[in-house]
């Protein structure tokens, strides 16, 4: 019987190696998998490349992972925040590499990885500093920049409900990056508010089919 539901974050994250690329869902706090990030900090993997919209806030979650010195590089769109002090300090000290990506390009590069697209031309950032050194092309009256997929070894996600096949539903704007990150990682680990029996999720409303999910952890309530 297929059962993707794991008992503990420790078990679900045991094999994350040093040097892994890890996608982390969430936009600010909405959809941030706090339980899994804490699990990753406890697990100890280091030299990580992290993909997230931001670069951590205050002292918990992604900020704590960065603060613990585990992150070598971050791909994100908006690192600078009033409370991104862990990132700011390491970045200014030259200890943390930043690849700044426009938000839509970040989303499309993640989606491209999941969809088997080798590269794509996007109009975003053409003529700006973020397209410097990149291949460009004029297509049908418009200028485009060539962008490549972002693949990950692990995706750590938060969803609302899951069944044992790994089907997921989300809650409101907490959905954000999770469905595309699920498709772009070799191993997708999801923390959910609730696990339900197979068949309880309406097949019309499954947002992430279980084919994209390897491991599920229920958050303690």
């Amino acid at each position: 019987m297929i059962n993707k539901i794991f008992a503990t974050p420790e078990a679900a994250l045991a094999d994350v190696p040093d040097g892994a690329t890890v996608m982390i869902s969430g936009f600010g706090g909405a959809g941030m998998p706090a339980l899994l990030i804490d699990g990753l900090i406890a697990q100890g993997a280091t030299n990580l490349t992290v993909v997230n919209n931001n670069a951590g806030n205050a002292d918990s979650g992604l900020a704590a992972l960065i603060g613990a010195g585990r992150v070598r590089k971050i791909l994100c769109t908006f690192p600078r925040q009033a409370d991104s002090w862990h990132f700011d300090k390491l970045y200014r000290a030259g200890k943390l590499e930043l690849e700044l990506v426009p938000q839509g390009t970040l989303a499309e590069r993640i989606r491209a990885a999941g969809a088997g697209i080798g590269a794509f031309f996007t109009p975003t950032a053409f003529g700006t500093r973020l397209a410097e050194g990149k291949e460009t092309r004029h297509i049908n009256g418009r200028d485009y920049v060539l962008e490549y997929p972002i693949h990950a070894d692990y995706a750590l996600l938060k969803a609302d409900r899951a069944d044992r096949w790994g089907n997921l539903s989300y809650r409101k704007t907490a959905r954000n990056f999770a469905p595309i990150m699920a498709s772009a990682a070799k191993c997708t680990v999801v923390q959910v508010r609730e696990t339900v029996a197979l068949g309880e999720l309406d097949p019309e409303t499954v947002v992430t089919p279980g084919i994209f999910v390897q491991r599920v952890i229920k958050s303690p309530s």
Partner: protein
Amino acid sequence: MKKFDRKQMAARVAQDIPEGAYVNLGIGLPTLVADYLPKGREIILHSENGVLGIGPRPPEGEEDEDLINAGKEPVTLLAGGSYFHHADSFAMIRGRHLDYCVLGAFQVSAAGDLANWHTGAPDAIPAVGGAMDLAVGAKQVLVMMEHLTKDGKSKLVERCSYPLTGARCVNRIYTDLAVIDVTPDGLHLVEIVAEDLSFDELQKLSGVPLRYRAAA
């Protein structure tokens, strides 16, 4: 001269947004436009974090941490609203489905180049968010900014000195002094909004030549 305040600026932008429009309001000053959309005019607000049909800020104590806008402020959802993931949200933006976006700016050039993400300071930590996508994606890119910097320099410039967000992307500029259209032959004044400000005075405060044009 009496400049428009932030609320007046927001109301002036809101006045130009028609019934049925799909609109993204940028973080900061543009977000204020939502409060001044004319009552009874149905306008559908988009936020790049995956929501269409944003309603007003919830009453104190009824915030939902899972329902926020791109500025990470709590919002509500109108009847008819919907949620979607980030790739779909930016497909809407990049695919030219939004009728309008309203963005803040550091500088706008006579050609409609927009600089709003980076001051160019070498030690600044950069952050771009969805601005570059909105700049190339929305059918109409409206900029909302003060006419002058804090030290009195024009934010309308011949050529942006700050790094660009997008080239030749701005359609209309709303400042605390005037409403100005970007056209193939330069900036055209639509309307002076500051009280007791002549065209000549406005021109002196602006870093680029302005032309008169009948309001749209």
